Every structure is written in structure tokens, then in C-alpha cells.
């Protein structure tokens, strides 16, 4: 007879009925397999657990720093403190912001600030751009119309009003254009925009060149 394989050995062992003596071993040496009892859960235990869960909710609410990822310390865990402690957004570089807002202007004034000859005035080296900053703010806030002379050429087109932009945005686009295309004029502060906007009151009419010169006169 050939040698027994492991599989055959397992089959033989499994099918063998235990002898009479081994069959009595469990009876002599151990009790039946355990079973479940069904006593009720004590009420006092449940009350303790409810109290514990209540504490858990309170502790979580009081010590989570409003679930803000930046709240690391124990001092700022109280509700509200986490939101208050959220860091201020970093100030945006006006040149970056201005460049983005200038995207609204490129249709007429062009990406290189050269404008379109006979239709839209250039910004590069323009005496208006390098001149009085308050005049520029007025043009942006309320627009301009009527003939204007720029670098010796007369343009008679319409500049739309951009008063819906925020002070910082207007200041940024002016700062950008006054420092780009070869221009080298100082930055414009948001406070200047705020002051001009305030002074103009409820004006809705676009400016003319004559009005601008009058407003800028000391």
C-alpha cells in the first residue's frame, strides 16, 4: 500500500469515531459549552451611561476649538475662540491683483498698454497715467467721455465707469498700470480711492476732460 497523503490522513482522522474511553474524557473533564443567561440590564447602569454620554457631548462642544484645523492649544478650545483665532488672510500684492483686474481693460487698451490708434488711447507713457492720481481715480469710478488729448492725438471715445469695484481693486489696477508698460509712477493707495469716492457723492455722469481739469485744479 502506498504512503498516506496529508489529505488522506485528515479524511481518515475525521471519519474515525472516538473509542469508548476517549469519548468519556469530555464528560469527566469538562462541562458543557457555555450558554447565555437573559437577566435584564440594571436601570442604574443605564442612568450612569446616559450621564457619561451627556458629559461626552458637553466636553466635545467645550474643547473642540470650533473644529478649526489651526487651533492647537488648550487656551483656544472654547466655542467661538477657534473662529476668532482664525488667521487674517495675507494681504494680496497690489501688482498681482492689479494685473488680474487689468484683464478687463485689455480689449481696448491692449495687453501692452498701447491702446488702438484713433480709437482707444494708450496707457504706456501717457501723460494722464503718469500725472495726477486723483484724476485717474475719478475716471475709473465714473467713466469719461468727449474728446481727450493723449500724447498729442485726440480720442473721442467712451471710458466706462468701474465704480462697482472695491477701493483696493481700483487702487491695485492703477498701481499696476502706473508701474507697467515702461511707466514708472508711484502706487495709488486704497485710501485715496475711498476719499475721491466719498467726495464725488452720488455722481453718475461720466467726466469730460474739462471737468477733470477743473476738479484737479487746486
Amino acid at each position: 500500500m502506498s504512503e498516506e497523503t496529508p489529505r488522506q490522513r485528515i479524511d481518515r482522522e475525521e471519519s474515525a469515531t472516538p473509542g469508548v474511553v476517549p469519548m468519556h474524557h469530555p464528560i469527566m473533564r469538562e462541562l458543557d459549552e457555555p450558554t447565555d443567561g437573559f437577566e435584564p440590564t440594571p436601570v442604574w447602569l443605564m442612568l450612569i451611561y446616559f450621564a457619561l454620554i451627556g458629559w461626552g457631548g458637553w466636553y466635545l462642544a467645550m474643547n473642540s476649538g470650533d473644529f478649526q484645523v489651526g487651533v492647537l492649544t488648550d487656551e483656544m478650545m472654547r466655542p467661538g475662540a477657534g473662529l476668532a483665532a482664525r488667521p487674517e488672510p495675507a494681504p494680496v500684492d497690489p501688482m498681482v491683483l492689479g494685473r488680474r483686474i487689468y484683464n478687463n481693460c485689455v480689449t481696448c487698451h491692449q495687453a501692452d498698454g498701447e491702446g488702438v490708434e484713433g480709437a482707444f488711447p494708450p496707457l504706456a507713457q501717457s501723460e494722464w497715467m503718469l500725472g495726477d492720481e486723483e484724476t485717474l481715480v475719478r475716471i475709473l469710478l465714473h467713466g469719461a467721455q468727449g474728446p481727450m488729448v493723449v500724447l498729442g492725438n485726440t480720442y473721442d471715445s467712451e471710458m466706462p465707469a468701474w465704480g462697482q469695484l472695491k477701493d483696493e481693486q481700483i487702487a491695485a489696477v492703477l498701481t499696476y498700470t502706473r508701474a507697467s508698460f515702461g511707466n514708472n509712477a508711484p502706487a495709488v493707495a486704497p485710501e485715496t480711492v475711498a476719499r475721491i469716492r466719498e467726495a464725488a457723492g452720488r455722481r453718475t455722469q461720466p467726466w469730460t476732460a474739462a471737468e477733470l481739469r477743473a476738479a484737479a485744479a487746486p
Partner: protein
Amino acid sequence: MAAPLPEPAVNDRVSRIQIDRSCRQTVVWYMASAVFWLLAGSVLALVASVKMHAPGFLADAEWLTFGRVRPAHLSTMIYGWGSMAGVGVLLWLQARLSRVRLPLRLLLPVTVVIWNLAVLYGTVRILQGASTGIEWLEFPVEVLAFIGFCMGVIIVASVLMFVRRQVKHTYVSQWYLFGAVLWFPFLYVLGVILSETDAARGVAKAAANWWFAHNVLGLWFTPIGLATAYYMIPKVIGRPVHSYHLSLLGFWTLAIFYNWAGTHHLIGGPLPAWLVTVGIVGSMMMFIPVITVAVNHHLTMVGHFHHLRTSPTLRFVVFAAMSYTAVSFQGSLTSLRAVNEVSHFTHYTIAHAHLGVYAFFSMMMFGAAYYILPRLMNVEWHSARWIRVHFWTTALGIALYWVGLTWAGWQQGRLMNDPNIPFLAIVEYTKPWLHSRSVAGVLMAAGHVSFAWLVWNLIRQRGAALIGPTLLKRRKGA
């Protein structure tokens, strides 16, 4: 003429013999390997412990420097002793409770060999200095593939047994066994991937590391330990578990709350405060399953404590179950910020960890081994005296260990929180307790040697042939 036994009871006993016979090879191999790693881990533990108060000890041997011996001790104990003993007990309990023979009987013994080689390779690599440096995952990452494969086979075996089960009612131990066998592989694979690759970075890696390390205790060792207690206590004293309702409550609250607790290890660290707070709340909610299980076990035991004098299994298991209550209470309270400010980064934490892994889990595995192995080997334990030696050395050893280090750690934490006290003065202060730790370690190691001696003789079949169980004291009238 004696009345014949009712038919189902006879069949039940026949099948128990057949189940035990089917488990013999796999379970005995797992348990015996576990005992080997217990001895190896004890040696590493003693070396590490002596170095704490005698830094010059073996300091010239590169392989035995503290930074290598300590993680090697932890890894052999967790993956060698604890997990291998746990798998052996898990397979046997699942077979017994499903009333089916162990499946995959050609593949499962192979997993013992693979698992042993994986632990051996990992331990040698740690001692060579190739530890990953990540707590509880110091083994090199390739060990994952081998232990992962073994766990896969064990999952399949568990599911097969449950699917083929011959009883309609699912006993409480089986829930815990299923919890363990499904939670741990998930934890282990995800723990390795998050901690040892770039899947998580920065503090997220630390959070993942402690999520894993804490859950190894709570969702691997704890369910196996509790499954053992839920089986052994009613089995030995011969009465039902007090309340099925409490069993349900205890299991599901463990399943819900434990997973949240890990971040309490990072109190004071650069983690978002809410993540730590969630960990603290999860730890405190652990009072619910712990009290539930303690009440359930206690009310099962009431009136039967006299069995502790005779049954070695029950003595170890009840010691372990009481330690589970103690370590869990301690753990929940330690997670509170006010306590943690003192206890963190001190010997207190080491004492707490050993109360969990040793006084609870290891003692539970000793108790299980005293019950399971004679039934698999058809031989009784050859000496009640050695069992007594084992119990008292380990019980007193862990008690001394815990008391000494808890006290030392608490004082150490208080002193360290005072910036005016020089660090070296604090080290000097803790030295007597470091000595007491080494003494405790020697006691426990002596217990392990007597346990290994008993297991060795049992496997060599040098014991009384089955007449009755080896008891610590003779029953009256028996």
C-alpha cells in the same frame, strides 16, 4: 442501571473530541511558537530593563543597545507572543463554538511557519539597526506581506467555520472573535501603509501611528481576551453568562468607541485640538463597555469564587478579567488633559501599557493555554506545583512592576513639570523604582520559564494520561 445521556449531549461530546483533534496541529504549533517568543521577549525585556539603571550593561555590543533591544522586545511580544497565542486561542474557540472541525488544515500549519519566520526576520533586522522607528511598527515594511498573508488565511478559516456552524445561536465570544479577526488585518495593513509610506505626512502620520498602535490593544488583543473570558468563566464554573443584554451592550459600545481613543497619546502635541478632544471623549466613553463587561463577569462569578482555589484556568482568567477593568479605568482617566499633563512621557505610561498587555492579555492567554492544550494533547499538566509557581511569580511580578513604575512615573511627571528641578536629579529619584522593575522582570521571566517547562513536558506527552484535570488543590471529597 444509570439513565442514558440524552442524545444531543452525547453527540456534542463526540464532536468535541473530533474538533479538538482537528485543531491539534495548528493550535499547538501556534501556542508553542508563542511560548518561544515569550521567552525571547523576556530576555530582551530584562536586558532593556537593566540598562535603565546600569547604562554600561552590554553597552559595547552594538546589537544590544537600548534603542534596538527595547523595540525588539515590544515587537517579539506583540507579534510573536501575543498575536500567535491569540490566533491559536481564536481558532480553537471559533471551532468549539461553531461546533465544526477546523478547516484549511494543510494551509494553517504553513501560516505558523511563515509567521515565525516573519517575526524572526523582523526581530533580527531591528537588532541589526534597521528598525523603521515607528512605534509598534518597528518591523521592516516587507514583514507586512507575510503576516498579512497569514491573517488572510485566518480570516478565511474563521469565516468558513462560522458559515458551517452547527448551532443556530451565536455565542458572545464569537462576536468578539469576529471583531478581532476582521478589525486587525484592516488596521495592520492601513497602519503600515499610512505610517511607512508617504500616504500620510507630518502630524497626520503621528495620528495614524497612534490610531494603529492603540487599536492593536483595543481591537485585536482586547476582543480575543474578552472572548476567552466569556468562554472560560462560564465553562469552568458551569453556569450561563449572567446577561445576554449586557453582553450585547458591552460588545457594541466597544466597537463604537474604541476606534476614537488613539489620539489621546498626542495630548499637547501639534494636532488640531478637536482631534485630541475626540480621542479623550472616546477614551472616557470606554467606561461604558468596561463597566458592562465587568458587571456581567462579576455577576456570573458571584457565589463561585471558591473555584479560584482549584482551577488554574479560572485563576488566570479572573486575574486577567479584573486587570482589564483596572487597566481600562486607568486608561480612561489618564486620557484627561489634567492627568496627562503629569503622566505623559514618564514611566507611568510604561506601567499602564504592561497592565494592559501583560496583566490582562498575557494572563488571559496563560489561562486559555491551561485549558486548551491538555485537551489537544490528550495529556494532563504534569505538575500543579509548577502551575502555582507560574501564577504567583507572574501575578506578584506584574503587581510589583505596576506599583513601582506608576508611583515613579507620577512623581517623575510632577518633578519634570517644575522647570527649576534639574533633569538629572529626577533621573536619580526614579532609580530605586527602575531597580524594582528589574526585580519584577526577573519574577515574570521565572514564571515564563516554568510555563515553558510545563508546555514542553505536555508536548512531549510527559504528563498524567487523562484522568481528571490538574487542579491546584484537591476538591473536597474528590
